[in-house]
């Protein structure tokens, strides 16, 4: 049987724990009047050819967030980022990406297939230090047969959406296809009730049906 003091303590501790772990608290902490140097830059580029759409996502971490991430990579805390530690970090990223990055063709979610192994570029500082770094991931998706002029492509992400993001978008042209960006938000603040960030909303403005791999898109 606990004493009243112990009960108050445990209640307070629980409240503190709940508050500390609540997304709202986390986001408010991250959001409040942060400076540009705390923004994670996310650049998404899409290019379409031969019935597939390649999606590349590059995230550039500013110095202080990079330091946090580097500490996270340095699992044994020796201040050196070993190949195994970097590989494990990238593996985690890939796993997270599968759950947190989505592509929609005309509002239908399509399967993003990893195209390349993720890349960690520590730029000119390879240790646990405050220096920007970047990660690069690539996927591809089979373009549905029904896609054509007027079709809409949306890419959504929940990656680091509890941090302020600077988003830029590039759409590459190939073989008579034009993807017009219809939304490039530029800047995104964390939102308590919106963990999903729309990285890209593009509309197809020209289309050559020959680009679609009919055999593949029946899948």
């Amino acid at each position, binding site marked *: 049987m606990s004493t009243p003091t112990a009960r108050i303590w445990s209640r307070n501790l629980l409240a503190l724990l709940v508050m500390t772990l609540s997304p709202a608290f986390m986001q408010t902490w991250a959001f*409040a*009047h*942060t400076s540009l140097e705390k923004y994670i*830059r996310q650049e998404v580029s899409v290019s379409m050819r031969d019935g597939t759409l390649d999606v590349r996502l590059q995230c*550039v971490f500013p110095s202080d967030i990079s330091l946090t991430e580097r500490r996270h990579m340095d699992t044994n805390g020796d201040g050196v980022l070993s190949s195994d530690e970097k590989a494990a970090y990238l593996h985690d990223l890939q796993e997270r990406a599968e759950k947190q990055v989505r592509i929609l063709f005309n509002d239908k979610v399509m399967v993003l*297939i990893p195209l390349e192994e993720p890349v960690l570029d520590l730029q000119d500082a390879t240790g646990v230090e405050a220096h920007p770094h970047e990660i690069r991931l690539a996927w591809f998706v089979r373009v549905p047969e029904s896609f054509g002029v007027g079709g809409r492509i949306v890419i959504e992400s929940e990656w680091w959406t509890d941090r302020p993001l600077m988003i830029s978008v590039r759409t590459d*042209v190939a073989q008579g296809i034009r993807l017009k960006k219809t939304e490039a938000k530029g*800047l995104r603040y964390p939102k308590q009730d919106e963990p999903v960030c729309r990285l890209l909303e593009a509309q197809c403005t020209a289309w050559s049906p020959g680009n679609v791999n009919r055999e593949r898109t029946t899948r």
Partner: protein
Amino acid sequence: MNVIRYASAVFMVGMTVLAWAQQPPPLPDAVKMADALFQRHAYLGDGVDTEAVDAVRRDLREAERLLRRNATEEQQKQGADLMNTASSRLLALLQGLSSAQVVEMPVERTVVQPVTTLRLPGSSTAHLFRVEQGAGPARCVVRTIDLSVDAVAMFTIDVKEPGTTWVLAAFDRVPQGRTSLELTLAGAGASRLTMPIETMTEPHGTLNVRVLSDDSGKPCPAMMRMVWKTDGSDVRPANAVDLTQLFDNQGSATGLRKAQLGGRFSGSYWCVPGSFSMSVAPGEYEITVMRGAEHLVIHEVVEVRPNERVERTYQPRRWVDMRDHGWYSGDDHVHTQILSDRDARMAMSWIQAEDVRLANVVKMGDIYRTWFEQRGFGKAYRVQDQGYILSPGQECPRTHGELGHTISMNITEMVRNTEQYYLYDTVFDEVHRQGGLSGYAHVNADLFFVHRDMSINIPKNKIDFVELLQFANLGTTQYYDFLNLGYKVTASAGSDVPWGGSVGEVRVYAYLGKKKFTADRWFEAVRKGHTFVTNGLMLEFTVNGALPGDEVRVDDDKPLRIKAKAWGHPERDVPAKLDLIVHGEPVKSVVADTPDQAAIEVDFTWPPGHGFWIAAMAEGRDGTRAHTTPIYVVKPGFRFWQHERAEELIAKREASLAEVERIVAEAQAGRNSSGKEDANRPVTELAEQGSALLERVEAAKAIYADLRTIAAQEATLRKP
């Protein structure tokens, strides 16, 4: 009974799916092998179509994805089928490779093979072994051995399973000359096959490169990429400028600059300040040389043979010299530290490499501190070399959750008073007093709530320019709203390096006509609004001969002569469409007749009506954009605004002002802009400066109220 049948069926389906999921892949590690062959070691596949390898690896990855996820039974089956067919295709590709060395594993004993000599094309290479170990399925093993990390020269690769194992052993950073390695294939049980390997790298060759200016014929800086075709690796030119030192640990802090350009030219480039000579592994090198938007890009594959010296001179040809048309390029937003002559030389090399005539090199600040320090400001601290100018400026004040970022050019000293940090007009006034120009950054994307301060200070005519193009993104929404209220604002562009890719990837051209190029004249041209912005295409645009930024006053209804031309070069980018925009809407659009049409021109007349603003906008085949500052057609007694939307546009501005009132109220209540208690400096300073800021808001409101009155008066006059 039905329940039992149903449960049995579910169980059987589940077991089938589980069986598919747990079935060993037909060719284990096929994805790694296909990736390695496609991305780095395509040279192993002599005569193999890389597109075929790419198609196989995509199918393998898709199959892997289908099998790995909690997919439906049908998807699992599709995955298994796709994995089977793609694996068979990869196996067929591997079997067709003549470069594969066949080795037979001994049974339960160790065999040391005679020395195998591998002649490596360079410091990186790979060798493919087809390891036979009795009957059994095929599999792949890919192993990369970095000899700069693995000091010991003995390596073991497991090939324990019976059957055929395709082993791709890749070696990175192999020393030059002869190196003795010992590679052991560890088979089943005690089977060991040890292969002493003597790697012999080919003697290096020497590559001498110089880049000449198309203007002077003399050596000049350039942006360059060198790819060793053997494995697709990027080679850093020997004298590449170490730009990292200029970046204050900010942004993308590396000398390898990613060009944010359309399609073919995207990729990363080094800034090379002049001629260089370097020892390189023999083989073919794909060299790309760029010199900014006005030059064609040179692509060349150069073969370097062992012990041979290859001399290459590149002279990127101008497809246009905008100076001949009176236009001079600039970048209003370049962050580099310049504290020494050495810093200045590096930054100068960069703008010369990108052929940007004037860079506004901005010291950056916020309410706490500054970055990208400068030696000083004003004419004495401009750096000039061969018609290129670095001119110090500032990006400050910058507030991120409140009022946005500002840019100033041609200042004589930094203007920064944190006790008035939210009173941007104090900075604009001081900058103007110094003879400089003030503007807003990131307007193309409406970053950092810049529309709020725009609503306060544009109607007070405190602003000269806004950034309309950045990060390859032309954004006109905010710009058009202010133009449509009848305010003149000049279009500008800035790369924002090191957050952006490279200096001049977006640029603002200012018109000097036949006058000699000087920094003062360039700034004066921007002040007059004689500009257009671009990341590729070029634009010319006149109304009755007047230039962008000019005012054309009309007293009668005589149609105006409007001429515009967008042009490019088929080897860079060409215009796909040219729009003439009046009050934000295209009134004339011309689409290119053919994909390679180098220019689109329009020449038409348009009635002056009650006045308007008109601008030219072009879109390139590769997605590049260009946009002019408008020409303002003014009829006495009328604003050049979009009168029919005046109320809506004024309401928007008032809503922005209400946002300012809200954040001031929050700050004065000790809360930040998201309504949370906050005692950080931005909040306390905003609270402190709030009443002065609100006075400015009131003054802006009065201006908008006057606009309402004017709109009502004009409504009567505008009736037909």
